[in-house]
């Protein structure tokens, strides 16, 4: 098998509360996998199970084809980076980096070699003899990454590593992390609630909810072909526009409007008529000259305008429905005006209203 990490039928419950349910996940060698979800979805719990910091109720975990379900965290061949950095405050940076190696009784010369290499990769050589208290947030997180790096392991686990940093530093470190992954090519499992981090870093994203994986796929799949209403709603900011209606003979009917779904790629060509929900991303709504080229054209009344610099978010009324449209930052529109818009059914998403699954 060429999987780096395999999770089979993992169950975890605290008392009566089931946190993870029959969870299966295979992670490829060298893959950057992001576990994404809102708080309480079980993403951090899953990561702690992989690390061996939580005992599973049922199921198995394999790392590099070894069954590590009952192994100690330090015996699993993983390194871990925490949200609060979790640096040992009384030790110097060098002490922090070598603590794990000393516990594993790695020879002294080897420890020095690995610390020096990690410090070089992360550019923290001048900080080696300082204590964590004397470091900035970004430097601390680099040391925390270094602590995982010196262990020379194949799997890195990241538990919301950038959440404690301010916005600008977060972007910088995000880029660095991506560069680090390109350089090291380890398997990385990364937990976050920030969808921008997920989209930018991941090879594949696992969107989680209620201890289950709602969708596992590349950022492109997650964004453009959400497999159910939850993922469609969770991904994207501002979030997708949803209109509830009926699917009748390959057309979508909402109120008295009829939208022919020509060009939409149905999962099953013989999809029967049923109550359904259509989802359209605000940025997939064509405005201006492009609106005239779209297969479907409407007129909406502008309710509210939010200029955001890079683009303009327009809240408009389509019939009785509130409809968000993302326009260019230069767009000069005012509340009360009528706006012609165009929609391409090929870029929309259709969901079964009952099962909430993509059609």
């Amino acid at each position, binding site marked *: 098998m060429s999987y780096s990490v395999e999770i089979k039928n993992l169950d975890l419950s605290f008392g009566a509360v089931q946190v993870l349910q029959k969870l299966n996940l295979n992670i490829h060698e060298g893959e950057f996998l992001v576990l994404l979800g809102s708080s309480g979805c079980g993403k951090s719990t899953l990561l*702690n199970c992989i*690390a*061996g*910091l939580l005992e599973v109720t049922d199921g198995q975990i394999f790392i590099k084809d070894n069954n590590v379900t009952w192994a*100690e*965290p*330090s*015996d699993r061949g*993983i*390194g*871990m980076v*925490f*949200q*609060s*950095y*979790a*640096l*040992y*405050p*009384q030790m110097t940076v060098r002490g922090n980096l070598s*603590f*794990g190696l000393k*516990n*594993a009784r790695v020879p002294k010369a080897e420890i020095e070699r690995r610390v020096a290499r990690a410090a070089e990769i992360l550019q923290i050589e001048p900080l080696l003899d300082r204590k964590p208290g004397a470091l900035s947030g970004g430097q601390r997180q680099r040391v925390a990454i270094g*602590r995982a790096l010196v262990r020379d392991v194949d799997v890195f686990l990241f*538990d919301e590593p950038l959440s404690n940093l301010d916005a600008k530093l977060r972007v910088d470190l995000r880029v660095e992390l991506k560069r680090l992954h390109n350089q090291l090519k380890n398997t990385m499992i990364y937990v976050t609630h920030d969808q921008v981090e997920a989209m930018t870093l991941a090879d594949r994203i696992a969107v989680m909810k209620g201890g289950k994986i709602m969708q596992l796929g590349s950022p492109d799949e997650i964004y453009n072909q959400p497999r159910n209403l939850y993922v469609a709603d969770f991904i994207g900011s501002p979030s997708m526009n949803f209109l509830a209606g009926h699917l009748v003979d390959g057309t979508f009917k909402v109120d008295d409007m009829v939208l022919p779904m020509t060009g939409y790629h149905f999962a099953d060509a013989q999809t029967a008529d049923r109550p359904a929900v259509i989802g359209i991303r605000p940025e997939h709504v064509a405005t201006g000259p492009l609106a005239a080229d779209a297969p479907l054209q409407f007129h909406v009344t502008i309710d509210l305008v939010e200029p955001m610099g890079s683009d303009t978010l327009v809240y408009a009324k389509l019939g009785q429905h509130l409809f968000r449209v993302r326009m260019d930052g230069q767009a000069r529109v005012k509340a009360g005006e009528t706006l012609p818009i165009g929609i391409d059914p090929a870029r929309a998403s259709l969901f079964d209203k009952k099962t909430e699954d993509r059609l």
Partner: protein
Amino acid sequence: MADTALHGPKGPKPKKMLSRGNIMLYGTLIVVSMYYLLPLYVMVVTSLKGMPEIRMGNVFGPPMEITFEPWVKAWSGACTGINCDGLSRGFWNSVQILIPSVLLSITIASVNGYALANWRFKGSEVFFTILIIGAFIPYQTMLYPIVIMLREIGLMGDLWGLVLVHTVFGMPILTLLFRNYFTAMPEELFKAARVDGAGFWGIYFQIMLPMALPIFVVAIILQVTGIWNDFLFGVIYTKPATYPMTVQLNNIVNSVQGVKEYNVNMAATLLTGLVPLVIYFASGKLFVRGIAAGAVKG
């Protein structure tokens, strides 16, 4: 309009230092302070006077002729019954009780608190709850069973028996203190150390202990004053030869034989109070922290 804006109140509002409120406030505080300071003052001046001066004079008056005789006698010559070697014996007994009691109780409680905070096992919380409830049980219901236990292990009347008793009765509050402290430490630190391969003792000694120094100081202050000031356990679990200082002090001052030497009594009382007082004035804020921590038991 513009005029009123210019001539109205402007700049900082004038304040009166000697306002009626301030006089009341500081006046009350100073009067109350005198009530609190009075006994200490009276003890000090009494202990420095000779007996003739005490018999004729004013208890609040400063000594006309300062003498350290009472202090010397209290330390090395005051009598309890037939023994006339003063408080010094009690002092050394107390020291011999204090040091092992403090070390043992804090060692056990810190490891216990750490285990409860980071390595919970089935039933650990139940035992802890019983321990905390135990802190509210009047000591009187446990006094005699402990006599039997100490007799069984041959430590009744021995200093080490009293050390054990202090360790046992210090355990609820100290365990709570350490457990709360370790629980408040970031959990991720503990997780990181586990990923780094450190075990139960490795994490305790290398990660937790260096971070817990302030709470150790608080615990030491709490225990030193508590054990030094103990009277009940000392009087029950030791014999006259091993009486701690408080018990001996009470026997000296309240002995019915002989003429009462109030100056010696007050010197003896001050001597007994000296150790906790020194700790109190030296530790300052930490003492307050310690008793505040001790206060939130349960």
